[in-house]
């Protein structure tokens, strides 16, 4: 490492440090392309999750997807299609069922979602345990960003495109609901459409993240960049852009750190995201230190 650092002072060293890994190895380029697609879609999803106070919902949904993907794996092996469909079906079932219960009964959204995702998780573990072969499954549940093949990359790109399209369509009701859900519910029939549409987008993004980073880490690419971006701006547009930028930066840095320091890739990416978040928390314009130097300006104005 230290030799690498010293080399980094020269231009050639910088080249070797930052560019050469991607030139030499196809799997590094593929990983970067997959991260780019994920950053464009998952990070904006995270912003809306955060503004709707649903960040923990993202985590619950990630667990809800896991058994679906596991069932798909048991029936078709490491098939991209089967695991994608299984994950999406399981995620959608949990989302719709918990939404229906929350809107039709006394139970609130958080409790009903927790109930359904736990049922889904238990079902998945049950099926996996009785069918055996859970060694391979562990590799499925952890990250595989280093082994993205062409179909997986196209899937990530397709999901990213679809997500951007969906967010563009749902943008106005989503923003309105973030600010004042009661108002939207009173003036528009769009409220359930935007709610379920958003949950559907969440599910496909979690499935995409699962293919790249594994179920355990995929939520990180949503929640952490959004939370970090929130410390820099209040406007939604810049926040979406900044969150995507954070995600892409963290993926690139994480890949390079994993390459140079010989650390496992997906936890490193999420740790870099975490550092960006902590940094933003400290020095962001609305962060802890930011507030200290900003408050006198406010007094003057």
């Amino acid at each position, binding site marked *: 490492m230290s030799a690498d650092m010293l080399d980094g002072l020269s231009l050639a060293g910088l080249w070797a440090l930052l560019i050469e890994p991607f030139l030499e190895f196809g799997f590094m380029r593929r990983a970067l392309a997959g991260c780019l697609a994920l950053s464009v879609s998952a990070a904006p999803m995270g912003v809306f999750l955060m503004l709707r106070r649903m960040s923990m919902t993202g985590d619950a949904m990630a667990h809800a997807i896991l058994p679906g993907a596991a069932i798909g794996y048991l029936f078709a092996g490491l098939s991209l299609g089967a695991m994608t469909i299984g994950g999406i079906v399981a995620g959608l079932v949990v989302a719709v069922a918990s939404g229906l219960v929350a809107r039709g009964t006394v139970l609130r959204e958080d409790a009903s979602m927790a109930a359904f995702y736990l049922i889904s998780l238990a079902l998945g573990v049950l099926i996996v345990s009785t069918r055996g072969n859970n060694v391979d499954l562990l590799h499925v549940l952890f*990250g595989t960003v280093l082994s993205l093949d062409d179909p997986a990359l196209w899937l990530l790109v397709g999901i990213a495109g679809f997500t951007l399209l969906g967010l563009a369509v749902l943008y106005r009701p989503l923003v309105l609901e973030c600010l004042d859900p009661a108002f939207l519910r009173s003036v528009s029939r769009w409220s359930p459409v935007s709610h379920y549409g958003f949950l559907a987008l969440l599910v496909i993004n979690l499935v995409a993240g699962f293919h790249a980073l594994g179920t355990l880490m995929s939520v990180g690419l949503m929640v952490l960049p959004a939370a970090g971006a929130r410390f820099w701006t209040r406007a939604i547009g810049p926040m979406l852009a900044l969150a995507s930028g954070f995600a892409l930066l963290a993926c690139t840095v994480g890949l390079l750190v994993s390459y140079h320091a010989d650390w496992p890739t997906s936890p490193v990416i999420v740790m870099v995201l975490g550092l960006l978040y902590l940094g933003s928390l400290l020095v962001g314009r609305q962060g802890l230190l930011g507030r200290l130097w900003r408050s006198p300006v406010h007094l003057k104005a």
Partner: protein
Amino acid sequence: MQPVFKSLRLAAVSLVTAAGLCAPAGAAEPALRVVASFSILGDLVRQVGGERVAVEVLVGPGSDAHVYSPKPAQAKQVGQAQLVFSNGMGFDGWMARLLKSAGFKGRHVVASAGIQPLKGAADEHGHGHAHAAADPHVWQDVARVQAYVKNIAQGLCAADAAGCDSYRSNAAAYGQQLDALDQEIRRAWSAIPAQQRLVISSHDAFGYYASAYGVRFLAPQGVSTDSEASAQGVARLVRQIRQEKASALFVESIADPRLIEQIARETGLKASSEGLYSDSLAPQGEAASYLGMMRYNTRVLIAAIQRR
């Protein structure tokens, strides 16, 4: 079927002995009760001993002799045996302690006695160990197993003089089979050009095979553990395959088939899905005997190289 039968018989024997009866179950009463430390040695002793000898194996097929710890029932078997075979060269170093604690009174034969050992794999990685330990996996060279067979026959003769003629003729017959196998393996490899005989394998047990049959084995770099892969680990393996122009890849430490596909895309070299048997026989099938195991390994290695 045979392993099932064997374990049934073993269960029967231990039941009978537990009941305090001394006569072993089974129709023909064996003249010698023998314990061998691991499955490959057990097969060799059976071949030489024939029907006169009842062989029990401590580390069964598919188990790892390096991390073996004896069970109480096995200590009892050892205590009642007249003859114990171990491999030696540190492979089954737990044997000496087991013999002492089991109160073993019989004869202990080290099957690899008199064989000039190769150095262990440790010094190939350039760690600079001054004294690399002897590589104990001698049986990977079929020609050297002739010495095993001689040692086994001598040991059996010393313990059971009445059966000595039968042991000698068994050993001679088996020795001819070993010769034939040795020739067969050499013939199989002669079809492969020397520069193509480069295999990357996570086993470190093929030193004797390598020196006997002119095959180079390299340890895979980067992906030694089964934890989540790092980008550097994958990069090092890819670079190693490219630079060394390896012809076959056996990496059981990579369990994720998608990662194997990715490496294959990058290098044009796909990891073999069949494993190699290094220091234990298979519970059943072709590799359940020593001769079969060597045949199987050779075929899998050559098939992986020719698949390129």
